[in-house]
């Protein structure tokens, strides 16, 4: 857990360096990579822990790929996806979610393994 907490300031620093507006998804930008390589292929090398968590989770099992939540990286990109995207498939939770005081699906769920936070 400590390791993850240490990432947060790193994120803020890096995003500031990148000129990314923190707090605005529309401002998220993916580095200009070789987009003829799929998200999964590249991230399984570059962020293997994230790829593993996704693969072992329900979204990995039913092949709901990176792009569904994070976008294609060019025309649309969310570093941290809005919960509205989740509602595309999980609309049965919509009312419950709206009535709650939880701001995001990820308040309770890990974004990749989808497990509840410990």
């Amino acid at each position, binding site marked *: 857990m400590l390791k*993850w*907490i240490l*990432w*947060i300031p790193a*994120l803020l620093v*890096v*995003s500031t360096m*990148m000129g990314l507006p*923190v*707090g*605005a*998804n*529309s*401002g*998220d*930008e*993916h*580095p200009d*990579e070789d*987009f*003829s*390589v*799929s*998200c*999964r292929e590249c*991230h399984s090398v*570059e*962020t293997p822990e*994230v790829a593993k968590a996704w693969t072992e989770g*329900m979204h990995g*099992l*039913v*092949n709901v*790929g990176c*792009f*569904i939540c994070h976008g*294609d990286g060019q025309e*649309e990109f*969310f*570093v*941290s996806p*809005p919960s*509205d*995207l989740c*509602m*595309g*498939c*999980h*609309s*049965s939770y*919509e009312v419950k979610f709206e009535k709650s005081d939880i*701001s*995001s699906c*990820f*308040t*309770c769920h*890990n*974004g*990749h393994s989808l497990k509840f*936070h410990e």
Partner: protein
Amino acid sequence: MSCNRRDFMKLSAAGAAAATLGVDLFAGDLPEIGKETKWHKSVCRFCGVGCGVMLGVRNGKPVGIKGDSKNTINRGLLCVKGFYLNKVIGAKNRLLKPLVRVDGKLVETGWDEAMTLVASKFKELIETHGPDSVAFYGSGQGETEETYVANKLFKGHIGTNNLEGNPRLCMASAVGGYLTTFGADEPVGSYDDLDHADMFLLVGSNTAEAHPVLFDRLVDRKKKNPAVKLVSIDPRKTPTNRILDKHLQVFPGYDLAVMNAIAHVLVKEKMIDEKFISESVNFSNGKEAISFDDYKAFLEKYTPEYAAKQSGVTAEEIVDVARMYGKTERVVTMWTMGVNQRVSGVWLNNLIHNLHLLTGKLGKPGMDSLSLTGQPNACGGVREGGGLCHLLPGHRAVKKEAHRKEIAKIWNVPVEKIQPKPGKHTVAMFEALNSGDIKALYVMCTNPAQSLPNLSKYLPGMEKAFLVVAEAFHPTETSKMADVVLPAAFWGEKEGVYGCTERRSQHMPKVLEPAGEAKWDADILIDLAKRLGFEKNFDHFKKPEDIWNEYLLCTKGKDLDLTGATYDRLKKVRGLRWPVPSVDHPGTVHRFVEGDPLFPKDKAAGRRMYFYGKPDGKAVIFARPDKGPEEPVDKDYPFALMTGRVLEHWHTSTMTGQVPQLVRAVPKPYIEIHPDDAKAMGIKDKEMVKVTTRRGELTMEARLIDRPLPKTVFIPWHWAESLSNVLTTDAVDPGSKEPEYKICAAKLAKA
């Protein structure tokens, strides 16, 4: 902005960490979906599962899509393609105005000019060369109403049976299987059986990618009931393998022996239902009736050892699967193109049904022989609507005089107008374009210049003929070749009905105005009918419901009775499963049993199942010998080439190729090669490879992966820039006329 990949990956990881902690670092803008958005109940435009979707519309624009949580098929879930359906509506390649070819180039024109040209050309050809000089080629993606109007115009008024649809290329063998075995097309059971089955046998089906939401249901069933068994008979490892208990990875084209061997074990070990067999089953060798003993004698050859030698799996594996099948009470078998797109497709369908009939695992919750459909309305519009060259609406055949009379009466035409001889099936139709026997073709909502097998052979005929393409998108490989391209309204911009895999018809509303000058396909066909002089019998079609109501007359009293599925009712419910003979009938979960409104209790006389499509109510177990592929591997072409799908693209990518997220997921063509073969040939991952068959060659990137067996390779077929069908064979099943897309012989070389 500058940031290297490693920095970025750290950023992504930090985002993930933030999410893990529940810290909303990027509580950002959401898509333009707000309280003013109105959500409309509809049906997904992609595969044949029939998922319910809600289309969000705001200020006349499509702003969102979500799964319909009230629809019992998908219960709110979507696959990755359906997730972007709203984006396809506004795709950059939407065709906004009619196009006609002038001096070799397609140029924009007005509707009247375009339709005047189409009508005059069709009229001239019909008068000069007869009605069989023109043809129509439709789609399992058209609405039932659209296919119905085309059928009425071409078969009933122009007077040609040269009317086909692309389900010939995907479902015809399943139709042949259901008709020969049960005497009636389409499944006995329904998706409800998925919630009760204790074993699923998947044959030639990559369910996870081709029917993803049904795969979700299998995952759900397995998670809640870990004792549930999943078995696959398939030549390739796929994402479906994630939940399998056993995979019989057969060499492509040699699974008929395996199915007969499973039957062999069931009979030898007495895991059969003698009572059910004696009450409800006949036996046949395909030419004449045989006895059960004859059938047992036929099975003698198909020992597990024999099948193992044919298919490459072990005898023990076959016995294990047979025992699992025999000892599990509730079994559902599901299959798709790996079975249907074969020269022995109908036979293999029969062999699947055989197992259910031998064991009586049919017509009860959790038991079914369920063919999975590839297109959203292949069942509804084409199979039920009669959109093939030998059919008439309502599961009727052109060759039956009584059927022609019934339909001629509804169409208000003399019965002589409908020809008794079937027209040309799809491959023959495109051959006839080559020979010049067919001189004009109207294509609606499909892309044959990419999807036909042995493609290079058929392109010259399409080039030569007067080609009309009604399509929402341009350019496609087909529209590029057209003489006239007519802009068609797309999903959401038109009202109609789709009928999915499980006999369920569902209503789709019109909630958007068509893009540009696009028109509803049925309106375009009605306009053509009027211009050809048939106004009298088409003028009453003022709205989609008028067409549906006329179609319902064709279903009254038939096995697919939809009389109770009125528009009023369909608009309120999440579809109805036929037979649904009255407006107070809830629809039918299982056919041929009590509870089916058509079940004849008197004739059944105590039998649990009565297959009323057969004269004596008995289904047929067929003794079908094993048969290999049309083009086995040999020393010159030593690889078995398979073609198929990936999850993120659909068919010719006309739609999915416009969604950046889906393009990004699987950006380019590739060929899967087993690492052992690659090593032997010195091919490295991502190197370019030349694939050659007796019909053509392609060069594409190699993907070294142990999904295909050694000496087999796999190519997804979605990309226009790499037309996999220049490689495939156009050999067809002799019964269903469906081509063997799934297997041909190939050779590989480093490019």
